[in-house]
């Protein structure tokens, strides 16, 4: 019982320091927790993810801003990098893989990059195909990597049709139940997502995280 209390105390400290964006402390405490034989899954869920959840919630409520989230995410990764080999060894799956990219013909990638950063911060594994990405590339990568979600970005009116090529391709290959799609960027909308048969639309990075979580539960 006493051991459990100390353990909880340590995990809470990890969560607290993570919220403060102190990557040095999170690194040391995660190391300590591993040495004290606390289950990696507990360190992840009750330490790192618990801290990121608080951050995510505060961000959603506009109590903190993007840089605070990025600092926290960096702290999370200082712990996560140590945990990852252990989690893999124990066969514990990651939160899920997401393939993202800016569609072909479009070189706007600032928004997509932000979404990628925030998804990583929320514990997802992100495969970023960069910009100028072809429909086939999105689908092939998702299949190869067993990703559950494809996230597409477009900032030009003229490049949005490519998004439909991706949703069509998934449907034609019977993949639309296991691979979900989410889109974003100034010229697209919820209505456009519905029109092309994409599963979700998000107007910013925080919303993107929320939607991807829901999609992963569905996929």
């Amino acid at each position, binding site marked *: 019982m006493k051991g459990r209390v100390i353990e909880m105390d340590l995990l809470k400290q990890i969560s607290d320091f993570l919220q403060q964006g102190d990557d040095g402390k999170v690194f040391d405490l995660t190391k300590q927790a591993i040495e004290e034989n606390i289950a990696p899954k507990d360190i992840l869920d009750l330490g790192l993810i618990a801290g990121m959840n608080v951050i995510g919630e505060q961000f959603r409520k*506009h109590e903190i*801003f*993007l*840089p605070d989230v990025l600092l926290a995410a960096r702290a999370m990764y200082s712990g996560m990098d140590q945990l990852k080999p252990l989690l893999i060894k124990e066969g514990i799956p990651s939160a899920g893989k997401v393939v993202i990219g800016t569609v072909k*013909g479009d*070189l706007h990638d*600032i*928004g997509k990059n*932000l979404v990628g950063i925030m998804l990583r911060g929320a514990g997802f594994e992100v495969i970023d195909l960069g910009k100028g990405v072809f429909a086939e590339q999105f689908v092939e990568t998702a299949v190869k990597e067993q990703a559950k979600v494809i996230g597409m970005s477009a900032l*030009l*009116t*003229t*490049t*949005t*049709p490519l998004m439909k090529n991706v949703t069509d391709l998934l449907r034609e290959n019977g993949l639309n139940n296991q691979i979900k799609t989410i889109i974003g960027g*100034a*010229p697209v909308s919820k209505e456009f997502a519905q029109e092309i048969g994409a599963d979700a639309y998000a107007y*910013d*990075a925080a919303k993107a995280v929320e939607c991807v979580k829901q999609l992963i539960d569905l996929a």
Partner: protein
Amino acid sequence: MRPTVTFLNDRLIEQIISEARQILCVLGVEIHNKGVLSLLSDYGARVNMKTYHVVFTQEVIEAALKTVPGSFKLFDVMGNETHNFSKHRIHFTPGSAAINILDHRSQKIRKPSTKDYVDYVKVVSQLENIASQSTALIPDDVHEGFSDSYRLFLSLLYCEKPVVTGTFKAESFTVMKDFQVAVRGTDKALVEKPLSIFSCCPTSPLKWSDVTSQNVVDCAKYSIPVEFISMPLSGFVAPVTLVGTLIQHTAETLSGIIISQLTNPGAPILYGGSPAIFDIRYETTPMGAVETMMVDCAYNEIGKSLGIPTQAYISLSDAKQLDAQAGIESGIGAVLAALSGINNISGPGMLDFESCQSLGKLVLDNEICGMVFRLIEGIEPKEDFPALPIFQELLKEGHLLISKHTRTYLKDEHFFPGPVINRSNRARWEDEGSLTLEDRAVNEVEKLLDNYRPSELTDNIKRELVSLMEREAQRYGQNNLPERPE
């Protein structure tokens, strides 16, 4: 005396330019275009073809700066001079390339069609304080492969004013150049009388894409004017300080100038941009932020110090509708831009982070621009000294409403905006229907649409434009263009 505003002193300008040049000579830039890289290498820049990386020398920068024209002019489709980009002369142009239109009748935001584009052009053709058109909307009812060139086609067909435009992909350049040659008659005539300006964007930080660097080269070859649109976002992909942002903007713009001037020494350019701060709360790039406007005015001073005419995306708003925020942000921007002497001021009509054009806002902004033109005329003595005679007349007559002095100077001294800006007293305003600003703007738009008179471009040239456009459309498998309004 013309009123002015300045943000930088000479020493700071010098420091900023010197740091920017050092960045170009130490860190260099990435240019994803082999043709451009080999050109630069021929002139002595250090190029790595594998990493698309180029490091400049002070000599290359100097050579490019030497050949930049200190001024140039634009001419309308009929060949009349409309713009003189020199000294502190200012010209307004509508904010360009919006994704959406704010429908003036329904007040709803939606994707624009050919009809919307033509309506927009009809309105702009009659706005006296807005000297050029811009290709301000992307019609949604044609194949996306040619919707960039289609805008220029419609503009040249319906309105005589010169056009601020740009391509979305390198292939579109040819037909967009051909349209202009068709209007002027020959390549040479187009060089002598430029008809358009192309916006070309580096990618912050310190990068050029294949498409946009190719645009710079293509325009330079035909001496088509280019405005460089560097877009550092302070605190995100640029330093958070305004000085740091200016250093980056200077480096990126200089790199564009080098590409242009080494391709064709003397090719006309505007030292432009669309920098913004990054609002970390909303993940947005506010064009109406006061810091954004300060950076615009400041890089204009840097451009001027290099002897180059300037451009900026200023006098636009991030409001989502025609509300007080739209007026405040556009008004402050227009005033600052004019006081700074930014030569080409891109903004009127634009809302929502450069993504929504509004005809209602355009007619309001036209009046704001009118006030601004009056503002920069400043306060000058006319027949004011000696003062005794006019006061003797005033005391004798009891008023000066029909005095010769008043009749001579009224029009120059006072600018009367309206009908969007309303100056009637309350009772009259109520009697005339208590119209809101939005109502008045809508009425004005409708009136202009009714009053539109077609461009006087000859039918032959119009037919040639149509056949060029049809051929381009066919390349994308579209055999019929949408029906065009009268």
